[in-house]
């Protein structure tokens, strides 16, 4: 009987939640690594018992944990992330040059081809690869040394590489997103990169349609349509049907097109989810109502999903890596809030339940569908 395992990273540790196919009763284990920020956890699609966790604090820096038994036990693996060569500078908030400095890992993406290969997206923005299950890390420096790299600048949350999408049929093609540099695509496994921001517009930029500088908050892709990408940007929800070369806005009737996460239904490539918040200065849901918005048309036409979610006095946020979908026949969708609530739906978002309500601030949510 299939099972579901949620990997929840929070400001004060990690939590692992498990349930059966019904997804109504959950067992909660944690906090693991109590007191540490767990930026992200993700399991290998080839070996679900292999899970990586990014463990970090400002005091003690980066630790990388790996489990090979589904989270029952953990071992610290390599935590040395050295930029390739002379790191150089990027732009600081005020436009002055600032040295590239490693701070932390925002996102792990295990390879769908090789269980020993895993990618790490880090702050200051760079992409690292490990070929030995996280023991050693090598920068794919073609990204950071892109011709535009010295002009990249951080968003308020830091200059983080937070999204890594791998084309499962052609793993040499990957997409990454960086706040606030934009989106990039490689077709050679990370050696060289192309800007993937055509058609994006950001009013805060001196040139709104510049090739870099867009604050991409999150991107999503359905594995059956790897040329179609969905993006939640710092204002605007967008889609591309040509691998990021050209984007069109599909915000449509959303009450606000500001938000952080975006997700795609496991079995319906044109069904997508966002959680709007009011604005860049007010990171909470409009009208105090926590509403997930679903489009079954790949954008533009959106419906509010509210059943089981708080519809008054709710002022939490949902961070960029804090939403995930499972792949059971009746697709489940999950998200965590800055208030420590973890919500889940086992029916594509029609109805919701609070799985946990009093966790620390939730930074990330991933889900594994287990046989």
């Amino acid at each position, binding site marked *: 009987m299939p099972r579901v395992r949620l990997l929840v990273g929070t400001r004060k540790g990690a939590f692992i939640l498990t349930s059966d196919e019904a997804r109504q009763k959950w067992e909660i284990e944690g906090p693991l*690594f*109590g*007191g*540490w920020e767990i930026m992200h956890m993700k399991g290998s699609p080839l070996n679900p018992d292999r899970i990586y966790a990014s463990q970090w*604090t*400002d*005091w*003690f*820096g*980066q*630790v990388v944990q790996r489990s090979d038994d589904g989270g029952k036990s953990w071992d*610290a693996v390599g*935590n*040395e992330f*050295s930029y390739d060569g002379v790191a150089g500078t990027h732009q600081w908030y005020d436009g002055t040059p600032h040295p590239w400095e490693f701070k932390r890992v925002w996102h792990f993406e295990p390879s769908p081809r090789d269980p020993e290969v895993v990618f790490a997206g880090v702050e200051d923005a760079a992409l690292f690869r490990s070929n030995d299950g996280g023991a050693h890390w090598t920068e794919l420096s073609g990204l950071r040394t892109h011709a535009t790299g010295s002009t990249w600048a951080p968003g308020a949350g830091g200059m983080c590489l937070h999204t890594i999408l791998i084309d499962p049929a052609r793993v040499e093609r990957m997409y990454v997103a960086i706040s606030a540099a934009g989106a990039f695509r490689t077709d050679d496994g990370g050696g060289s990169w192309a800007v993937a921001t055509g058609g994006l517009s950001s009013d805060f930029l001196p040139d709104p349609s510049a090739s870099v500088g867009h604050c991409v908050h999150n991107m999503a892709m359905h594995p059956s349509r790897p040329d179609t990408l969905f993006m939640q940007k710092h204002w605007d929800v967008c889609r591309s049907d040509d691998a990021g070369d050209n984007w069109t806005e599909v915000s449509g009737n959303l009450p606000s097109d500001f938000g952080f996460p975006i997700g795609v239904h496991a079995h319906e490539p044109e069904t997508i989810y966002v959680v709007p918040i009011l604005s860049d200065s007010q990171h909470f849901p409009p009208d105090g109502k926590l509403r997930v918005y679903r489009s079954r048309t790949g954008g533009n036409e959106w419906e509010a999903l509210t059943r089981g979610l708080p519809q008054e006095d709710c002022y939490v946020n949902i961070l960029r890596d804090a939403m995930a979908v499972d792949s059971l026949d009746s697709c489940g969708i999950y998200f965590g809030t800055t208030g420590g609530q973890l919500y889940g739906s086992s029916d594509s978002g029609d109805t919701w339940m609070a799985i946990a309500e009093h966790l620390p601030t939730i930074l990330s949510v991933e889900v594994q569908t287990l046989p």
Partner: protein
Amino acid sequence: MALPAHLRTLAGVEGEVHLELGASPSFGALLDALEARHPVLRGTIRDHRGTTRRPLLRFYADGVDLSHQPLDAPLPASAVEGSEVIQVVGAIAGG
């Protein structure tokens, strides 16, 4: 030496850590010995090159702030003798 709680948990140690050093013990030699015994601590107190202290940590012993001393400076005699504990202290957190 005494580690902050996060590092004790990470390294799986309880209480103070007692380390054997060579004839001319320095703070650098102390950290070398600590990281050799507990490799998981590499990168958490100083960088991987072993040269730069993480900014939110300070080192104290016998009432003296050792944080800005060169790594090859000798340890206080009291710490070498074991009558004083070298403390790794994290900046206090608010909230």
